[in-house]
């Protein structure tokens, strides 16, 4: 097999975690997606490489679940780093120089090629993408402390009193040979948490390796919670939002559904909405995002809400400040969520 320069591994995470976007693949031709759960669903979505343009002879997308191996009884990923360790054999077949490690729960647009250039330019063992956050937010993130040359001198996981405002975005480029060596030792260390943030990065720091921060500017959001997923959707309604999905030079690819354009019925009233094909709206939609195949019945009201694919809101039903999960049916006249709720209502079953 042809050697590839950089291989990407996406940590699709645990139960309930869904991969929402695969960003453009300028620098990357082969993507491994690591997951413990829901692999059938994830596989059916992600592994069609053609959807992402990853369908040439030497490219591909692979969903990698824990596998039983002859000499080790490992059947779960014990941590983020372990997910990579257990797939060393897979990575070795491509013999990459660099390994790009990503998270599946983040919404952003990034040209990884530029990050790789920076990594090479700095001669780093690892490069971590960071973005400036406010000091209040800083305690929610892994915070990198850097010198004037962007070299990482220290880092703190969710610090109470942050010493810096550069938050790790969970995007890493490693020199594969160096990372491989550390992973091989980490695998058999019974004390290890097998986690990039908790063990691998500190080990590299202790070894005196050069770790640098790559500063990212633009929209980035972790959508690991219902509220943040809802917020990220609402951000799309903001005309001044930094996340531009309507960029023909940097498209965000997704599944290709055979569906009609959005049908807006004679009784509809639309006021600030993001509506995709395959939908049908004959009620009021205000400040809301409507996914493929969702239906809003006559006289229904959908306000400050997100309707995931296939959701059906019956005639006269009212949905406010809610995130309605895939294929949920909301009966005629039903009421979901409320305007003054603190948290976003997750409606995951029919009502």
């Amino acid at each position, binding site marked *: 097999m042809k050697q590839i320069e950089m291989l990407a591994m996406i940590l699709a995470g645990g139960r309930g975690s869904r991969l929402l976007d695969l960003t453009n693949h300028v620098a990357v031709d082969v993507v491994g997606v690591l997951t413990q759960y829901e692999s059938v669903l994830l596989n059916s979505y992600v592994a069609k490489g053609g959807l992402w343009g990853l369908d040439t002879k030497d490219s591909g997308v692979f969903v990698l679940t824990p596998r039983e191996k002859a000499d080790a009884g490992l059947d779960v990923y014990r941590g983020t780093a372990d997910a990579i360790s257990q797939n060393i054999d897979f990575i070795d077949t491509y013999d990459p120089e660099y390994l790009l490690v990503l998270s599946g729960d983040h919404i952003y647009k990034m040209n990884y090629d530029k990050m790789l250039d920076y990594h090479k330019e700095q001669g780093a063992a690892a490069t971590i993408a960071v973005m400036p956050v406010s000091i209040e937010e800083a305690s929610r993130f892994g915070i990198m402390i850097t010198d004037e040359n962007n070299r990482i001198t220290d880092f703190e996981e969710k610090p109470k009193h942050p010493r810096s405002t550069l938050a790790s975005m969970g995007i890493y480029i490693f020199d594969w040979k160096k990372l491989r060596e550390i992973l091989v030792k980490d695998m058999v260390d019974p004390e290890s948490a097998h986690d990039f943030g908790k063990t691998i990065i500190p080990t590299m720091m202790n070894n005196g390796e050069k770790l640098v921060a790559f500063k990212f500017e633009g929209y980035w959001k972790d959508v690991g919670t219902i509220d943040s997923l809802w917020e990220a959707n609402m951000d799309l309604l903001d005309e001044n939002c930094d996340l531009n999905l309507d960029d023909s030079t940097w498209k965000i*690819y997704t599944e290709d559904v055979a569906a009609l354009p959005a049908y*807006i019925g004679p009784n*509809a009233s639309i006021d600030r909405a993001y509506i995709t094909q395959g939908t049908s709206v004959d009620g009021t939609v205000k400040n809301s995002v409507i996914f493929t195949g969702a239906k809003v019945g006559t006289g229904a009201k959908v306000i400050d809400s997100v309707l995931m694919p296939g959701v059906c809101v019956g005639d006269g039903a009212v949905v406010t400040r809610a995130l309605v999960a895939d294929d949920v049916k909301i009966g005629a006249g039903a009421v979901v969520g409320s305007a003054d709720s603190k948290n976003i209502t997750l409606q995951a079953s029919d009502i």
Partner: protein
Amino acid sequence: MAAQTARTSRCRPAIFKGVHKNGSFTFLGRYRVIDFPISNLSNSGIINLQVYIASKPRSLAAHIGTGRHYNINSKRGRVQLLFPTEERVNTIYNTNIQALYENLEYIKRQSQEYVVIAPSCMVFKQDYDALLQDHAKSGADITALYHMVHHARGGYETCHIFDIADGKVNAIRRNLGDEDVRAISMESFVMKKSLLIKLIHDARAISSMFNLSDVINAKIGDLDVRAVEHTGYFGPITSLKSYYTANMQLLNPAKAAELFTPDWPIYTRTNDSCPSQFYDSAEVKNSLISNGGEIRGTIIDSIVGRGVTVGKGAVIKGCYIAAYTTIGDNVHLENQVVDKYVTINHENEIIAGEGELGYVKYMDHL
């Protein structure tokens, strides 16, 4: 019965003043007319296709590609794009028989016993496999599909009509608009490949201006041509007016449900556009809005293609707006078909009266 080869014949009438005439024109915002015959054939399990392209092949070739997005198996199936090889010294030679004749070798080379011929400029849903099975059982030479209409006088220009008696076609003629109730030919035929090859030679022996329908009509005394009626939505596209009507009828959800059913997907090439953004000044009623739009104005009883921008204060009523067109602020359009990549900024009123229809050219600036 082995797999079958299907051929989509070319669309004869020049539509939109000669700009598009080969099924590459857009339909219902996100489709091309050619998507309907290819999806019908693919859904029917007919995966060896030849598409005859009369002229301007770039756009169709790019759209159809390998056919993978039509669910056509890349190993066992095939979409072959075929082009004219001889120069047309006169447009009278622009016949489907001529196109088939020039590619006769490629027809002979196929292993299939039967052929299905489907038109590239009519929008409808049809299970061609069912038609093929019935054809084989019936023992007829040809099975021909038709649609009964009750207002043939005011439309269906250039369509063929069938004279039918006892389920057999006795004659194929032009629709002269002299009767209201007519059996309109859907230009869809099933026959053995050997018969098609014979008819191609027969046609050339009689007249170089003959199309397939003409030669079937000329030989109808020797042939058993069985007529099968199609029901459901039927949108033949023979003129700007019929194009507009075929689109607008589908704004009626009940009509659209005849053409689009979950078990019969209509495929098209994705262009990965994002959803459409509706701003607070937008007002939209009874319209189909494709993805990638930025809507700030009013849209009523209209169909809007991908990536269309509609400015603040703009009013669009009874229009078909094709992809990537920009309608500026306060522009007022009524009863217009606006082609792709048009920008309307300087003129603020383009209105055709009730029953009238206007057309704005591809890439035009107004």
